Every structure is written in structure tokens, then in C-alpha cells.
């Protein structure tokens, strides 16, 4: 690993776990994730149960249909729509729901414009949204004098569909309880976090046990950077709705982000003590804390248990997420080879075609140019529905593996813009914009931000030191690097670079040599890369012209032949591209 090879190290960390983040929750909707505990008696559903369910579904439809035919009304048609939806007949359900709403509209004239069957209208509107006929719902809603709850139902459902302006109009028309909860939710979705916070706080003042609003408040605060307050709101959500596993998972996610790994372990233990079942998602959280605490054996065991739980729960998304992360962790830990890991991940992708997590893990495992073909093939299949951040990362990684500095720089810049607090993205951008493209002004801006936002991140600070050294700020580079040098040979080499940039050749070269010895002791076998980087920076700093070139060469690291597979490795390809750009001889030597 060379003086500037830190990006790879950061992305390959076994502590990393690619997962889905919490999304804002729709207030008042049936919760997707409620708490789960163990059943006292396990039961394998058999034919008798399925027969009973089928018979109940049929009886429900038969009764609802008979009543609607006997007493055609908005009430009975809405009920019929629900019964049809229960049988999976979404077209019929939508048609009957529309008829119910049509009858509600017809009744208005008779009752002085009053909606006399508001709950049937609400039921029918909800059915229309569930069967993907939102436009019909909006059209009927515009003809009806909706009450507060019906307006909030419209707002919540439209917000889920991303029709935020319409959602906001419906929510703002309500003057009563529930308004703040929905408006807060809509504003979180619209990324207006400041606006959302006041509404969500108002909602919680009215109903302190409103776990939906507490969770949405937590998300808004987090995105504004108020991490402690976000944690506090997330904790409130878990305690307000003890049965809400989505709130617990969100809270754990934030604790992980805040590097409160021991608290994660304690909270998961608390959930188990309270009778929660060891679901895949809870086990994953615990495993992530163990990974971060470098307890990789325990973490791997937990992930294997999580995979079993996900398989039993038929949770395909979780299964793909866990298995792909397990493969990546094994590859990073050297338990399996990269080619083998890529093959396993490609097979996983074939079985989980829509999981972008699997492809992200492929991108992280890929470290050779020849991996690009498989990665690109998988990426093409998920590109359309992958999140923009993930898309930018994978595209960056493809460009990086190909040694295409221009594309890597552009994609890294895009990635860091989409995920400004992702340290992996920042690291990638600093490397590819700095070294790769030599756009030092842009790289310096990133470095300045890192000093403020991530002053304790040794990998990022090492990169800051590099950028400062290359931009004539050697003293600052030395100051920021000094506290990280102990036991971290990469920073030691970068410190050497900082001294070189100040013209202190002997000190600088001495630090390089010490770093090379430490790297060798640590089993790092990329000394040819370190040598090549040294040759590059000596040239870029002009040391061969400002100092005695013989002395510089004598003090420099001895030349080491490049590995046979250098043309398959991005770190060498990046350097080769730079050498070509500056018309230096390749391989780079002094």
C-alpha cells in the first residue's frame, strides 16, 4: 500500500456494511415493521389453515357482494371494493371504489353539499391509492368536501407517491390534530428539514407517543447535522412505540453512525431481553457493531445467523444484503480470493436481480481491471433503480479500476455531492480529484472541510496532509499529520512527503524509509507502489531541479520492480496515466 493508497483501504474496510437506511414513515399508515417476538408454540402453516383463510376470503367477498347488490350505496360499494381487493382482484376493487365515490358525489346535492358517508369515501380513496389509481382518487377528492381525516389520508398517500405539492395542499387544508404530523412528513420528503422540525415537534407536543413523528423528527434533525438531537428523537420513537421495530432499527442505525457501538450492543441485548425475536435485521445491527469493534469472528457468526433468519422469514432483500456483505467481508479478510468472491457475488446478483446492495458489494470487492466486465454487467441491470449515490459510487469504481482518471474524478465528485458526509466518498474524491486530476484547488476545498468535519479520521487527515504538501502548505501538513504518525506507516510516508515539500530532503526521505520498513513489518508488499509514488511527488515538487539530484536519488527508496499484474491494478494505472500526462518515463523511478 502506497502513501496515497488510502482510498482502497477505506472502501475495503471489513467494518463497512452496506445496508438500506431508514426512510421517513407515513404517519397513521399500518406499520410495515412492528416488533416481533418469539411464538410460544411454533406452527407450520398447513393446508387446513390455508383452506380456512381461503374460505374466509371467499365468504367476505360473497357477503359484501350480496349486500352491495341488495342495498347499492356508497357504504356497500366501498365494502365490496375492500372485499375484492382481499381476493387480489385489484381492477374490480378499483372499479367498485370508484362507484362508491361516485355515489358520495351524487349524494352531495341532496344533503346541501355535505358528505354524509365520509368513512366509506375514505375507505374507497385508500383502495384507489393501493390499486395504483391515485389520479382517480384525486379527481374524486376534488369533488368532495373532505373532512380533516380524509384530507390527511389524501395528503399521506400523495406524499408516498412523491406528489408533495398536492400532499401539502391537502395537509394545509386541515386545522386540527394530525395536521402537523403529516405536514412534517411531507416536508421531510421535500428535504425542507427546518420546516419539518417545527411541525413534527408540534405533533409530538400533541401526542408524545406518536412514534411516526418522533422517527421523522429524528431523520430531519439528522439530515441537518443535529446528530445528538436526532438520537434523542429516535430514542423517543423507540420508547413511545415499544412495538415499533422500524423505530428500534432506525435508532440503532444512528447509534452506529455515531460510532456508539457498545450502546448498539446493549440496545440489541435489551430488545432480546424484552422478548424480541432475533430477526435478521436486529442481528445485522449487532453484527455491524461487532465489525466496528473489530470483533470479526463474532460479527461473521451473527451475520450467518442473520442470513438463516432472513431465509426463514423469506425476506429476500435482507438475505441478499447479508450474504453479499458476508462474501465481501470474507474477501477483505483474505478468507477467500477476490475472483472467487466476485463469482459468488455475481451468482447472488443472478438470484436477486433488483438488489443494488449486492452490486455495491461487488464494486467493493473488485480490485482488478479484469473484474470490471462482471461488475459492469451487473450494474447495467440495476442502474435504473439504484439510488443516485450508489450509482455514482459504482460508476466511480468502474472508472477507477480502468485507470480512467477523468471519469473517476467526475464520478467521485458526483458521489461526494450526493453523499457529502460519506467519508468513503470524500476519500475517493480527494484521491481522484487530487492525485488523479491534479485539480488541487478543488481538492484543497475538500481538505479544508475534512479538517472541520472529520478531524479525527486518520485516513482522511492523511489525505489532507498529502494535499497540503502538494500545494505548498508543508507546515500545515506536518501539523495535521503528526498526531497520526504513531503506528500508521501511511501517514508516516505522507509526513515524509510534507518535509520533502518544504525542501527538507533528508528528514523527508528518512521518514519514507522508516515508513517502508514499517510497511514491510506489517506485511504490506506494495513497496513498488510507494517507490513509484515517491518518484512522482519528487518530480511534481521539482526536487530534482531545486536540489542535488544525486543526493535526492541516493536518499530515496531503492527501486523495486513492479508486480507482474500491475496493468490489472488501478493504483498503478492511475500513476501510469499521470506519468503519460507529464511525459515521465514509465515505470516511474528516480
Amino acid at each position, binding site marked *: 500500500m502506497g502513501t496515497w493508497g488510502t482510498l482502497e483501504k477505506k472502501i475495503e474496510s471489513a467494518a463497512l456494511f452496506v445496508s438500506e437506511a431508514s426512510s421517513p414513515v407515513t*404517519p*397513521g*399508515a*399500518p406499520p410495515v*415493521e*412492528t*416488533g*416481533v417476538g*418469539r*411464538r*410460544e408454540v*411454533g*406452527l*407450520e*402453516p398447513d393446508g*387446513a*389453515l390455508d383452506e*380456512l*383463510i381461503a*374460505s*374466509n376470503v371467499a*365468504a*367476505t367477498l360473497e*357477503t*359484501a357482494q*350480496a349486500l352491495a*347488490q*341488495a*342495498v347499492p*350505496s*356508497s*357504504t356497500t360499494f*366501498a365494502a365490496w371494493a*375492500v372485499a375484492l381487493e*382481499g381476493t387480489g382482484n385489484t381492477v374490480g376493487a378499483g372499479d367498485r371504489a370508484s362507484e362508491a365515490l361516485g355515489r358520495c358525489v351524487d*349524494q352531495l346535492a*341532496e344533503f346541501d353539499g355535505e358528505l*354524509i*358517508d*365520509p*368513512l*366509506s369515501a*375514505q*375507505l374507497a380513496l385508500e383502495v384507489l391509492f*393501493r390499486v395504483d389509481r391515485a389520479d382517480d382518487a384525486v379527481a374524486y377528492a376534488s369533488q368532495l368536501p373532505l*373532512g380533516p*381525516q380524509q384530507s*390527511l389520508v389524501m395528503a399521506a398517500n400523495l406524499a408516498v407517491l412523491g406528489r408533495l405539492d398536492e400532499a401539502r395542499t391537502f395537509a394545509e387544508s386541515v386545522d386540527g390534530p*394530525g395536521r402537523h404530523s403529516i405536514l412534517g412528513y411531507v416536508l421531510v420528503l421535500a428535504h425542507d428539514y427546518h420546516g419539518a422540525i417545527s411541525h413534527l415537534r408540534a405533533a409530538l407536543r400533541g401526542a408524545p407517543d*406518536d*412514534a*411516526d413523528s418522533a422517527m421523522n423528527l429524528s431523520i430531519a434533525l439528522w439530515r441537518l447535522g443535529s446528530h445528538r438531537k436526532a438520537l434523542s428523537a429516535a430514542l423517543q420513537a423507540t420508547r413511545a*412505540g*415499544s*412495538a415499533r421495530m422500524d423505530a428500534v432499527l432506525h435508532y440503532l442505525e444512528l447509534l452506529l453512525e455515531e460510532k456508539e457501538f457498545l450502546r448498539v450492543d446493549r440496545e440489541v441485548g435489551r430488545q432480546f431481553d424484552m422478548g424480541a*425475536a432475533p*430477526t435478521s435485521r436486529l442481528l445485522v445491527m449487532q453484527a455491524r457493531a461487532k465489525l466496528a469493534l473489530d470483533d470479526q469472528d463474532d460479527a461473521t457468526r451473527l451475520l450467518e445467523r442473520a442470513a438463516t*433468519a432472513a431465509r*426463514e422469514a*423469506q425476506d429476500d432483500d435482507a438475505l441478499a444484503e447479508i450474504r453479499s456483505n458476508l462474501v465481501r467481508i470474507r474477501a477483505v479478510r483474505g478468507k477467500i480470493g477476490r475472483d472467487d468472491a466476485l463469482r459468488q457475488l455475481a451468482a447472488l446478483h443472478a438470484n436477486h436481480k433488483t438488489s443494488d446492495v449486492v452490486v455495491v458489494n461487488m464494486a467493493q470487492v473488485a480490485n482488478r481491471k479484469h473484474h470490471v466486465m462482471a461488475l459492469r454487467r451487473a450494474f447495467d441491470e440495476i442502474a435504473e433503480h439504484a439510488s443516485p449515490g450508489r450509482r455514482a459510487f459504482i460508476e466511480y469504481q468502474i472508472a477507477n479500476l480502468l485507470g480512467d482518471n477523468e471519469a473517476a474524478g467526475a464520478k467521485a465528485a458526483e458521489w461526494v455531492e450526493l453523499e457529502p458526509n460519506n467519508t468513503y466518498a470524500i476519500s475517493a474524491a480527494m484521491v481522484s480529484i487530487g492525485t488523479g486530476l491534479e485539480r488541487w484547488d478543488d481538492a484543497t476545498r475538500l481538505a479544508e472541510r475534512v479538517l472541520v468535519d472529520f478531524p479525527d479520521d486518520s485516513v482522511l487527515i492523511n489525505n489532507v496532509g498529502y494535499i497540503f504538501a502538494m500545494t505548498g502548505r508543508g507546515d500545515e501538513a506536518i501539523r495535521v499529520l503528526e498526531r497520526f504518525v504513531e503506528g500508521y506507516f501511511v501517514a508516516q510516508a505522507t509526513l515524509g512527503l510534507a518535509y520533502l515539500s518544504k525542501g527538507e530532503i533528508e528528514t523527508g526521505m528518512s521518514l519514507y524509509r522508516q515508513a517502508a520498513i514499517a510497511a514491510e513489518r506489517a506485511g504490506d508488499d506494495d513497496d513498488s507502489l510507494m517507490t513509484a509514488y515517491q518518484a512522482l511527488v519528487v518530480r511534481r515538487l521539482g526536487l530534482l531541479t531545486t536540489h542535488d539530484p544525486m543526493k535526492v536519488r541516493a536518499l530515496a527508496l531503492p527501486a523495486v520492480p513492479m508486480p507482474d499484474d500491475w496493468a490489472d491494478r488501478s493504483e498503478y494505472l492511475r500513476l501510469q496515466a499521470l506519468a503519460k500526462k507529464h511525459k515521465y518515463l514509465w515505470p516511474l523511478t528516480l
Partner: protein
Amino acid sequence: MSAAALPIDPWIALLTGSALGPYQLVRPLGRGNFGVVFDATNATSGARVAIKILVPGASTDAVLDFDNEGVLLQHLDSCEGVIGYITGGSDTVPLLAGSGLSVPVAVRYHVLSIALGSLDELILDPVERAKLPWEERLRLWRSAVIGARQMHARAVAHRDLKCSNCLVLDVKKSRVKLADLGRAKHLTEAQTRPIEHYLHGRGDLRFAPPECLLLQAGAEVDHFLAADYYGLGSLLVELATGQPLTSLTLGDFNTVIAQSRADLQAGVHRDLAGLELRYRSVLKSVVETMPKAIRKDAMVLLTSLCHPVPEKRLIGSPFSRDRLSKDRLEWVLRRIDIMIRRLEVDALQERRQARRQKAAA
């Protein structure tokens, strides 16, 4: 059993005008899963009765339900809140075969008190429902609560409480009697069906308590009572909105059942308390349809009776003054009386106001 207009049913066609014992079948009143109900006249006394007939070829479940209803109605004979059981029996009716020959077919029947109709006939049409004064709705609900309370006192749970199973006897007195006891259960009797039947329950899913849709219902006494409390709450929701509560709260029941089936397979138990917010939100919509004077009390009653967690329904009154009461439904009746009184006071004030305005004019 609904008294709604019926599609042509061969058994109805065959039985109309026939005699079963001393009873002359006059006209069909309704049709259920185990047979048909007729308006009949006792040829000797001239008394009008309702006759529930188990049609030949009914499923085993239907036969069990029919027998169960007969036994329990006799057990509850002295309960005025439950439809009266007069007698039961069997007879043969001639069934015309294809060759013109007549084949005698045995049918079994229960003879029950006659009612004016079922409660759902008053609420399925929103125009009719809007005409039903709230005092009257509350009195109807009160009588259903009394019926359930009497059943519980005689160790029987109804397990299928809904407007269509409440028979209206006398509109002026705003009284209903509970009927359709096919799925009722004597609480001292042991489990009689496989566990699956209790996990999911039987019947129209729009009325089922959430624990049934989540495949978590139990077979203990408290589970049956909790289901009845939910049914009573849902009955008020029906009177207010025309829709049962589960239909309003749980959305697409197909999705809920599929998830619950996967949970069952994975051996996990989803916490019903996670539905609390959803229930609260829907109940707010429901009470919005009521007169302001009773909204607060209705919310308290519905929140307690229809709590998504069955055990929480059994806690009883949130009011300290009710703590000494050992009867779990007494506080409900007291609260309904308070609500009726509030409406009466409001109505009185409205009348006074109107008189004053008239006098001033």
C-alpha cells in the same frame, strides 16, 4: 344472516309455502352459510316466528354451527338480550325429482322469536343511516352491550358481533337482540376445533379482530371475551360509519394475512401494539362523524374496547370511579348512559333556544 333481497335460491323456492311441523313457512327473511331463515306462522296459535332451516348437504362446519347454536340458545333462554329460542325439530319436505316423482328430504330447523329485521338494514344506506338519530343509535348499541354482558354472565362468548347479527325487535324502544350464535362458544367447554381455527377465526374478515388477521388469536376464555369487546366497539363504529372497524384500519387484509402467514412459518410473533397509532388515527375519523357532545366519551370507549392488543381490551375502565366494578362491561353501559344524557341535554337546550328565538321573533 342478512335480510337483504336475495338471489333465487332453489331451497327457498322449494320451502316457501311448505309446512314444518305446525309451522307454515310464509316468506324468506335471509340466507346464511348453513341455511335459510323464514318468516313462519304457527298454524295452531297463529303466532309469527322465525324458522332457521339447515339445508340438506350443508358442510360439516355448518352442521356443527347449527347444532351449537341450538344448544347455546337453549342455555341462554332466559337472557332477554339474546334472540328467543322457541323449539327445534326436524321434518321432511317433498323434493320433486326429474321424473316427476316426489322424494322426501329431511330438514332440521330452529324456531326463534320473530324480529323486524337486522340492524345493518338501518345503516347500509348512508341516507337512511343519516336519518337515524344518535340517541337511538346509542340505545341500540346499549342493548347489544347488554346482550353480550348477559351472554358473558352465562359463560358464553358470541364471537361474531356485528350489525347483521343484531336483530331489531322494536324500533320505538330501540332494542336489539343478539342472534346468529353459530360461532358462539361456551367458555367452560374445552377446545373443540384444531388450533388453526382459533388462530384465524372464521367468518367475514372485515369484522375480524386484528389478532385473527395476524393469526394470533387464542383459544382461552380471555381471548374470546376480548374478541367480543372488539366486536362491541366495532358495532358502534358500524352504527357511526356503516363500515366495520377492521376494514377501516388494516387496509388490504390479503397483504396482512400473507405477512402473518410468513411470521407463523418463521415462528415470530408480531407485536399488535404496533397498530396503536393506526387505530387511534382511524378512531379519530370515526368519532368525527358523531355529535360533538359525545366524541370524547366515544373515543375513550372505542380506544378501550377496540385496542389492537386483546389483553388491553380486558383492562376495563380508565375512570377511577369504575375501579370497584367487577363487571367489565358495566362502565361501558354507564358511559353510554352519560352519552345519551348529554345528547338529551343538548337537544333540550336546542329546543329552548328555538323557543326563545321564536318568542323573540
